[in-house]
């Protein structure tokens, strides 16, 4: 009991340090810094390097890590946040997301992808107090964390720059009028936040005992949940949220096992968003109007192809693989098609209705599991399982996301992110249904006129046909009254509602149709591989889908297809390694957001 609580507090203090940084940055720059999780990872990795390779003692390790991550924070701000200060919030959200992918996978290239043992710099079980066993390590972690929080509190209250940070967080415009140098204060906030994040990395690494370059994303997401739990922007909230989440997780893990950790974290996060989105201590109302995409993407008109051009392209898509391509290349084509379907679902949700989803892997996974379980478990025919998969995915995505409709902007994206992660965690934990981490195998191929569709070319034709149907669906919806209503919500939700548009219902509808399409894509995905497990539907899939549509032009259905060819087809054809591929995605996304926000298939309106 007590030792579980203590373990929770110790782990939670890493969350608290990270959450402090997230909230500090949110307060000052009004940006949710997705790259903050990577700061943790870099802190852990460089801490490992300083202590193991260079053999430094703990206190110099901490100082070294602070220098490294402080610098990293500065770079993140200068590269990904400051240049987009005037763009709508979605821009910085995507760019920091991109930076996190770049840093994580860059670190993977430098340090190698394997998990390393973090050295036992301190004893873990040498002290006791009234029957409670703990180690110097626990004491040190808590002491360093609490010490840093006190220093931060002092810094913010007693120093000139600290007070400047608080002033900017309270009212940016007023602070600017008072002559506070915003740019310098923002730099400082990023450095301070990242120093804390780096220390959290070392402490977290020591506590977890082993680290890998991807450790940041799991811990980072927990920190994210902690910051939201405490109330984004509130520093006492971040500390309380971090410690509370740590303790809740510790008890959950002791009752249900280690896999339950992520499930608990994201269930907590979603619950907070549903019930009390401003968090335990939050003052800012997350309900204020804040158009997420504005004219950023849309200042583009999409390139329109003439009907004959579309027809030629469609015919070529059927004929060329049949006559000119080998099986391997056709299989790549199948992947491109499935990702194009997934991307089109996002074109509706994010491009048309303006709700940026960071969790579109959720309906994909739900569709894939539904189809896989129905066809293997009950022997249901694939063709029947297909619409059912779409339907289940649609219903569940609406049910999970729509309680967040009173929120806007950032918070919707957080809710979708949490949904995506929750679904993946559920697939791991609900083994009675999903067979847990080992997944579902021997999924039978679909049959058509009694013959199995399993040859690459046959699968390709099937998937391509469905893609064309989906494409037609999306294009027709865009041109209808419904499409115009969604556009109005995307452009300005408050004005749309005052024009008689029930925004929440239409957003649910967009998520429903998007979920249906993604669910269909998931069913195809499952049948195509014949095997699925939870790891297939991680956050990288959601990221890839979003990158595809942003690259192609968020509001362009054809762009989704072109984006899928470029991002899925090319790397596969070039046989790129996983790490280099993710690194490339990250760099591309960053470049598109910084330099060509309208995407490949959009042209700038004049």
């Amino acid at each position: 009991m007590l030792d579980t609580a203590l373990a929770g507090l110790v782990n939670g203090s890493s969350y608290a340090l990270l959450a402090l940084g997230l909230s500090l940055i949110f307060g000052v720059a009004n940006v949710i810094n997705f790259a903050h999780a990577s700061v943790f990872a870099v802190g852990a990795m460089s801490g490992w390097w300083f202590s193991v390779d260079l053999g430094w003692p703990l206190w110099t390790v901490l100082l070294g890590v602070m220098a490294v991550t402080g610098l990293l924070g500065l770079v993140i701000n200068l590269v990904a946040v400051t240049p987009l200060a005037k763009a709508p919030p979605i821009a910085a959200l995507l760019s920091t997301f991109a930076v996190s992918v770049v840093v994580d996978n860059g670190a993977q290239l430098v340090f190698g992808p394997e998990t390393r043992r973090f050295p036992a710099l301190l004893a873990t079980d040498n002290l006791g107090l009234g029957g409670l066993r703990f180690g110097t390590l626990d004491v040190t972690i808590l002491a360093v964390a609490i010490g840093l929080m006190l220093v931060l509190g002092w810094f913010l209250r007693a120093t000139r720059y600290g007070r400047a940070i608080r002033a900017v967080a309270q009212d940016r415009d007023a602070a600017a009028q008072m002559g506070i140098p915003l740019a310098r204060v923002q730099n400082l906030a990023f450095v301070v936040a990242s120093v804390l994040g780096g220390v959290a990395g070392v402490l977290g690494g020591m506590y977890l005992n082993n680290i890998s370059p991807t450790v940041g994303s799991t811990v980072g997401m927990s920190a994210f949940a902690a910051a939201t739990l405490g109330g984004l922007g509130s520093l006492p909230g971040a500390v309380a949220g971090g410690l509370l989440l740590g303790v809740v997780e510790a008890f959950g893990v002791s009752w249900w096992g280690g896999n339950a950790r992520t499930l608990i974290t994201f269930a907590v996060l979603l619950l907070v968003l549903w019930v009390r989105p401003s968090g335990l201590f939050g003052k800012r109302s997350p309900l204020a109007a804040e158009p997420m995409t504005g004219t950023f993407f849309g200042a583009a008109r999409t390139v329109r192809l003439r009907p004959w051009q579309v027809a030629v392209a469609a015919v070529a898509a059927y004929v060329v693989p049949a006559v000119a391509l080998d099986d391997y290349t056709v299989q790549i084509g199948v992947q491109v098609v499935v990702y194009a379907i997934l991307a089109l679902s996002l074109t509706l949700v994010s491009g048309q209705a303006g709700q940026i989803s960071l969790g579109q892997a959720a309906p994909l996974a739900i569709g894939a599991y539904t189809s896989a379980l129905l066809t293997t478990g009950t022997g249901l025919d694939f063709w029947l399982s297909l619409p059912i998969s779409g339907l289940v995915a649609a219903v569940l995505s609406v049910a999970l996301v729509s309680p967040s409709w009173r929120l806007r902007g950032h918070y919707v994206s957080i809710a979708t992110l949490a949904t995506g992660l929750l679904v993946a965690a559920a697939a791991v934990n609900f083994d009675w249904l999903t067979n847990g981490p080992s997944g579902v195998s021997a999924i039978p191929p679909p049959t058509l006129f009694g013959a199995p569709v399993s040859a690459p070319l046959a699968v390709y034709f099937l998937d391509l046909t469905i893609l064309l149907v989906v494409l037609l669906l999306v294009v027709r919806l865009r041109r209808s009254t419904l499409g115009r209503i969604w556009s109005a919500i995307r452009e300005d939700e408050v004005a749309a509602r005052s024009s008689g548009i029930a925004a929440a219902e239409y957003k649910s509808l967009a998520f429903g149709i998007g979920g249906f399409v993604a669910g269909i894509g998931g069913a195809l995905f499952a049948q195509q591989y014949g095997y699925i497990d939870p790891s297939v539907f991680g956050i990288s899939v959601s990221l890839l889908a979003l990158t595809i549509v942003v690259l192609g032009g968020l509001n362009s259905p054809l762009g989704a297809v072109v984006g899928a060819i470029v991002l899925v087809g090319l790397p596969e054809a070039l046989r790129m390694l996983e790490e280099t591929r993710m690194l490339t995605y990250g760099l591309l996304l960053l470049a598109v957001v910084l330099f060509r926000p309208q995407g490949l298939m959009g042209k700038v309106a004049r």
Partner: protein
Amino acid sequence: MTVLEVQGLRRSFAGLRAVDGVSFGIDQGEVVSVIGPNGSGKTTALNLVSGVLRPDEGRVLFQGRDVTGLRPERLAEAGLSRTFQNGRVFGNLSVAENVLIGLTPTLRAARPLARWRDIPVLRWLSLLAETAVALVDPPSVRRELAEREAEVESQLDRFGDRLRPRAEAAAHTLSYANRRRTEIARALASGPALLVLDEPTAGMNPVETAEVLEQLLALKAAGQTILLVEHKIDLVMRLSDRVLVLDAGTVIASGPPDEVRNDPRVIEAYLGKRRPAVRP
């Protein structure tokens, strides 16, 4: 007949009483203006009336029906249209599409089963029917759209040659004054029982302001009921049947324009002490 009746509205923001016990009524065909210094709670009052904000206390009756706390889309459907102080147009939609959005409450064929919308779960029947109609695009929908597009033309005509030549331009490319015009056209399109305008001439030059005044006078002559927040006193005096003066969230005077203009409390609180600032 009373179109709008407001009783004892209150709303605070973090302890600040933005609107503190405001009551008034508007009769059919009346133009009522709300004036008062910056920060006196005018916009907040409009937000409470139009459902954008919920009141802490008080009631709003619209056409005899209690609409307190109703969502803004419901109020719009019931016939209350508004514009916003800072001008909110749909930037990437064309001017014509902006006005077309204003006609959403009048759509029947494109929004089947709209009655089901108020019922949880069953509202999905209506949403799915709307999706089906959007995909199939039957003749009834096309006919309706053609009618509405004609209606948009006539709305744009209201502003002479200001908007007509730009009907297909994206709203974010418009001048400030034209955005305001687009917004007014959007609000008027559905033929609202009450038109609510929040500083419609903010940022306009005298010529443009005079133009808006003419248009509002024409609307008034046609019997349109209007609730107006405006800083330009001359416009208010010429247009209004009654004027309400707000200060620090409370009504300090109300009555016909001439009376209010000469009321010592108003001169003290408003005209004398702090001259109304014309926003850039």
